[in-house]
């Protein structure tokens, strides 16, 4: 019996030892910048310019965060970022789920041609269209408005493809049953499709959060006044007197990163699976 037990225990192979060691070393390289960012955010300015470098703050101070939030006006930028992100998420969920459902289940004329057309548009780099898009917003006097920040980011082809995939996985029988009960397309969409595609909606929301929260170029060109500035632009614009104050810069970095990490912590599974699936289906 002991013999059998011994045999069952898998032998540790060389490749496993090698894999674990390399991944561990890589892990240090991946985590070190984050660690340094967090540690520095709690240091005084004097500690950031000490030679040789000090790893841990002598007294952990919250002054940097307070300064960034109040004197550097980050509370306002937080508000703007949140409004922009929520607007884009709500808009994308609405627009993409409607279109995704239609492309998955409604047999309308020229459906496949239109789908190919979307694919072709997806291939065109956004930087190619950003100038014309800016001129459009500029001439509509929508620069420095939330509408200007949000609306152009709403029609997401990627999101439509993602949700279409989810809708296609919902059994036809449910739709048929609902139709017999007198449900129209709108009823099927709101009562059957949306509740059953919850996983897809969450995945899209996380993707939309991540890309919008981190986006620099669009808010950079579309807002000029402080009133509508978002976090990414604010962090990129830290210059002059603050530029060498690394304790403040790192505190600002920590503060823009925390929401990303929180959302990631909650939706980690959906997000990683969503990323993984793009490669398999693509």
């Amino acid at each position, binding site marked *: 019996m002991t013999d059998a037990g011994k045999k069952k225990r898998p032998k540790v192979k060389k490749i496993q030892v090698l894999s674990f060691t390399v*991944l561990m070393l890589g892990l240090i390289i991946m985590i070190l910048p984050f660690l*340094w960012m967090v540690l*520095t955010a709690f240091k005084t300015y004097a500690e950031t310019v000490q030679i040789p470098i000090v790893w841990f703050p002598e007294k952990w101070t919250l002054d940097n965060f307070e300064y960034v939030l109040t004197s550097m006006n980050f509370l306002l930028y937080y508000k703007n970022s949140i409004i922009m992100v929520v607007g884009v998420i709500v808009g994308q969920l609405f627009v993409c789920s*409607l279109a995704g459902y239609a492309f998955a289940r409604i047999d309308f004329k020229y459906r496949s041609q239109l789908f190919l057309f979307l694919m072709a548009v997806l291939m065109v780099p956004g*930087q190619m269209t950003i*100038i014309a898009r800016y001129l459009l917003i500029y001439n509509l006097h929508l620069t420095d408005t939330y509408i200007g920040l949000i609306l152009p980011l709403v029609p997401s082809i990627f999101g439509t493809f993602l949700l279409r995939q989810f809708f296609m996985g919902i059994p036809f029988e449910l739709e048929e049953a609902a139709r017999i009960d007198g449900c129209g397309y709108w009823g099927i969409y709101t009562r059957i499709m949306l509740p059953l595609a919850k996983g897809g909606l969450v995945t899209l929301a996380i993707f939309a959060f991540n890309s919008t929260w981190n986006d620099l170029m669009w808010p*950079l060109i579309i807002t000029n006044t402080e009133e509508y500035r978002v976090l990414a632009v604010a*962090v990129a614009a830290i*210059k002059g007197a603050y530029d060498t104050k690394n304790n403040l810069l790192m505190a600002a970095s920590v503060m823009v990163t925390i929401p990303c990490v929180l959302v990631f912590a909650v939706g980690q599974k959906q997000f990683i699976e969503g990323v993984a699936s793009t490669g398999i289906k693509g």
Partner: protein
Amino acid sequence: MKGEMEMVSKRKKAFYNTDNFWGYLFISPLLILMLIFSVGPIFFAFYMSLTDWKLSGAGEFIGLANFKELFADPATWTELKNSLIYTVFKVPVGVSISLVLAYFLNQRIPFRGMFRVVYFLPSITMTVAIGLVWRYLFNSQYGIVNAILAFFGIQGPYWMADPKYFFAAIILVAIWQGIGYDMIILLAGLQNVPGMYYEAARMEGATSFQCFRKITVPLITPSLFFVIIMEFMNSLKVFDLIYIFINASYGPIEDAARTMVYGIYQKAFVHSRMGYASAEAVILFVIILAVTLVQFWGERKWVHYD
């Protein structure tokens, strides 16, 4: 008889009750917004590249003058060169590292979930913040990169002040930021490879390295192809990291790192020369299109779909 009845009922169906009506109704928000913010601007960009469009008012048609000016401007060539250097280093190095990491992560080892999350972390973090942190890490006096190099007895360079090292530092950071994302996609590809292939190879006495080269790589070529295509496109479009590293400096440092999208941004939104910037955007579009087409053409040579 039955067909006739269907015909009748179809004819009787009111317009607002047809598949066509509902289909188009449901896609109309997407389609309308897309026409306004994506499709329209694509055509307009081509047109604008042939005009001297400024910020306000319509531009005058000037033919290919923008393109002539672009090709005569040494800055354009610097931007083109930098974009290509960035891509040529970032894509192969980044994808190779991601592939090896994915292979290692696919072994039976502890803490796999933790590895996945931590390696993925940089790809969800705001690039602007990553730029700030790494600028500090690369600081020649107070940064830890040179402190670590000094520990091994190496005198680190002036990363942020020496044009030679400045761009290299940016590429290193870009690789660091991107490997987790590619690793996840490749790992998913690896997990689709049936275990029996490896078992058979083991029975024949194949080593781990042979398994990796002869089984793993060929079988995940579809994922690999996807990652490479995506990486090429994104690398040619790099902006955020470049912008935050250059951080409004000019002269040799700016020239060392200015890429095409940085040039487009500067021409359009700093100098307000929309037509001129559009010409560069058109060139970028042609390059990306060409690179993508070449890859799809090369696809059948090395990508195996079962």
